[in-house]
Structure formats: structure tokens, C-alpha cells
């Protein structure tokens, strides 16, 4: 994904996505960080196991649900990325067992 005006004033930091390091710029949402890293899906559906990512981009559709730091069902398009965030692809309900 292009990042048209990269190189802003904030200092980049690192988060992980499914265990691999991803660079993040301050102020970006989890979804923006993942798009900038070329990732467009981070959830699979409960029934069909189909991949999903951003759809509405403004917190309405809940398609971009993701697990951040062990807490499932966060809207990636709303949650700001923070240094050290552990972002994981979410499967099904996002809850264990």
C-alpha cells in the first residue's frame, strides 16, 4: 500500500502482526498500519472462514474486527496502534474455547 506522505514528524515504532514485525507511524489506526504494510485481511468469519478486513472504515460495519494484545473484536479502523502492540488475525468469534 502506498503511504503518500510518509516521513512525517512522528517517530515510527514497531508492532507485530501474527508474530512478524510491522512498522507503524504514530496516530495511525491498526487498520492503517496494516494497510501500509500491504495487509488487507485480518479476520476470518465464523461460518465460512472467509477473510475480511476494512470495509466501511468508520466503525460502522465491524468487518475489520481484530485481536489486539489478546483482546478480541476490536475495530481496527478505530483503534490507534501503540508501540509494541501484538496484533493477531482473529478467527471465528475471536474468543478462546
Amino acid at each position, binding site marked *: 500500500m502506498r503511504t503518500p506522505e510518509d516521513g512525517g514528524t512522528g517517530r515510527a515504532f514497531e508492532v507485530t502482526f501474527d508474530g512478524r514485525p510491522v512498522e507503524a507511524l504514530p496516530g495511525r489506526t491498526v487498520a492503517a498500519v496494516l494497510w501500509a504494510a500491504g495487509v488487507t485481511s485480518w479476520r476470518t468469519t465464523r461460518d465460512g472462514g*472467509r*477473510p475480511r478486513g476494512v470495509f466501511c472504515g468508520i466503525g460502522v460495519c465491524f468487518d475489520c474486527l481484530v485481536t489486539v494484545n489478546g483482546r478480541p473484536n476490536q475495530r481496527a479502523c478505530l483503534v490507534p496502534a501503540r508501540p509494541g502492540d501484538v496484533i493477531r488475525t482473529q478467527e471465528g468469534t475471536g474468543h478462546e474455547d
Partner: protein
Amino acid sequence: MRTDLAVIGAGPAGIAAALAAARRGIRVALADAAPGPGGQYFRQPAPGLGAEGAVPRNARRTWTRLRDALAASTVDVRPEHHVWCVERESGRLTVHALLGPEQRASVELRADAVLLATGGYETVLPFPGWTLPGVVTAGGAQAMLKGGLVTPGHTVVVAGTGPLLLPVATGLAAAGVRVAALVESTDPARLPRHARALAGKLPEAAGYAARLLRHRVPVLTRHTVVRAHGEERLTGVTVAALDARGRVRPGTERLLPCDALAVGHGMLPHTDLAETLGCRLDGHAVAVDAEQRTDVPGVWAAGEATGVGGAALALAEGHIAGRSIAARLRGTAPDTDTWAPAARARARGRTAAAALHALHSPPAHWGEDVPDDTVICRCEEVTAGAVREALTLGAGDTRTVKLLTRAGMGWCQGRVCAPGVAAVTGCPPAPARRPFARPVPLGVLAAQHDRTTPHDDHPRPEEGSP
């Protein structure tokens, strides 16, 4: 905490109202879910990104003015307040909001007046492949660009219908994305019919058109996306021409390779808070009088919530609402002459909005052409076939379709699939009842019970059988 006026939504309408009321000595709290004011239209990149953002130049001037006025005002700006309910009990209004991105704790704002400036959200009608990663709403692509300076792919098709498509296509092109096509289902031959009503919008549209030309964006009018292709993500879309009745002309299909599709078919107002308060709705919009008052005492509404019409209209409505509230909270009737310029802007804005709405209706017969195996409800993965089956089981309205299929019962509570369900079933679209405007942790509700119930009045089991 207590305030005179709680404004819900810090977009154009909410900011204009907050400023107008605060200037007249009213204590105002301005709550919004986002990290900063602006709403979708004036959405700003985070300060850490160190960029001006993708707001159009003329809008940037308006934004600078509003932002500076807000900073100089007494308005109590409350970002990251996700309002889930406005409660009205014995005439007193309480705004309930979940805090921060975590949304685990809830606060209450008590107010004598509430302005609902809750904005709107985009509608997308379903088509095969619309659930693939890489397919996003046009507004979503714009929001991600404005707020995060990111784009959904390298080659994008912008499609659907409505005035949002032009700024989205030009914004993406300006950000360096290859816009493979702008696919608009409306026939431009219908434009002259509305030229008068839209006269004020034409310079803006002409500016977008010039930029499309500069970026060599092919424009396909009277075309539609019939299918999105890909397995794990989008690889291309099939577009086709529409005939005069809005049906796909056989043999005109062609494939456009792309890794992103930004698609939209118009907008709907957010009316959940209003509906729960008992405000009368007019179709999908909150009904208001000339002062922007709803029929519930103490509750005003402005902006897209009262009918989708864009930022200029929202600013005018917000301004009028703020002045009305300032007068009414003092127990006086406002002098409507003093806001005559805003009233004229509102009238122009509503005329233009009606024309745009008429011009940009999605193709007729859309629902009939959706194949049975296409998912309609993205949350619960309910297909068009299942939705049609519900009709044969005795459903005659979208609520019963939901009961029988789960379409609309998932995380988004039918906000996304409602237009699709209505299109596929032919049932009249009706606003759903959503007492919780957002998901609320059960512990938040339980704690409110435990706090409001005296200890000796232990949560009393209910009388009788469950």
C-alpha cells in the same frame, strides 16, 4: 457531569451548533467518538503523521476557521466518547458514552438539551464478491486516506453512484494511486433536469472533473460493477453498461484488473439515538421543525441525521440549532430573522440534496439480479437465497426476514445489510430499532444497576416464571 447542552457528533453540524450556543453563554459539551473534532468531512490526519491531510482546499479554509473558533471558545470538547444511549427520564436527559478506544468504561453527561448531530454512513448494495478484502466503501477509502494517509491498493476502481465518488477518485489519484476507472451508474443526460437545483454545486463538481482529467481517470457513466473477482483478496472487477431502465446490457461486460474497489450507493443517517428517545422519523431521517427541534422536548437534531445533504447544509442546520437552543434554554423564543442567511443556505442545501438524491438513485432491479449464493448480511453470512426463502416462510417485512434468517442480527446490527435485504426482498426499507447505538460491555450495564440499587435492595429476582 452536568452541562446545559450536550452535542453528540463533532462534525460540521455539531461544531456549528456548539459554537453558536457557546457564543450565547450556553455551557456546551461536544462529544464525538473520534480522537479529535471534524467528523468525516473534516477528518484530520493524526498530528504524528505531520501532514496537512486530504481535505479539499476550500474546505480546509472552513476547517481552519471552525478549529480556531472551537479552540477560542468555552466549548468542552470531549473526544473518544462513544455515545451508546441518550436516556430521557422525567424530562431529564442523560448521555451515556463509552470512553476511549477501549470502550470498557462508561460516563454520563447530564444536560438540559441534547443536539443529535450523529451524521451518516454509506450504503453499499450487495453484489457477488463484495465481501472480498480489497472491496471497501468509497467513504471508507476516503476516511483511511484522510485520517491515516493510506490507500487500499495500487490500482483502484471507484464505483457506485453519488456525489462522494468524485472526491474519492480525485483524492486517491492525488495520493498516487492508479484509478483504473470511475464507474457511475447515473446517466449524465439526467443532469440538466436538476441543473438549477445543483447550480451551487457545479463549480465544485467542475473542479473534480478537471482533476480527474489531469490524472487521466477514465469515467464510465451508466455503468455498474456486476462482480468482484478474487479468492483471498480482490484481483479485479467486471463492469457492464446499463440500459435506460437500469438493467445490465448483455454482452457489455468487461474485466478491469484492480486490487481495490471503492464502492458506494449513497448514505443513510444515523438515527439510533433519536429512535430510542422516541423522536419521530421521516423515512430514514430525524424529523425536525424550522428550529431543528425534534418532537421530543429538549432534543434537537442537525446535519446528516435529519437527511443527508453534505457539509454546507450541515453547517447551516447546526448554526440554527445552536441559536434555537440558546434561546429556548433561556425560556425565550428565538428571533428567527437573526439567522435568515443560515436559513437561506439551509433551503438551498435541501433543494440541492433532493436533486442529488433523485439523480443518484442506484439502478432499479438491483435486488433481482443478486445471485442466491451472494452473501447479503456480512456479519452473519446470510445469503440472498436464504433471505428469499424467508419470504416463502411468511415474512412480509425486513424485521421478520431478520428473525427468520439472522440477517441484521450481527455486530453491525443490520446497518450494512438493511438496504440489501430490502432490495432483494422488495420489502420497504425501514429503520431498525437499535436501543444500543453501539455494543456495550455487559459489565457496564451491571455496574450501573449495582450502583443505582441500594444494598439492601439486592437485585431482586423477578416475580413469576421466567
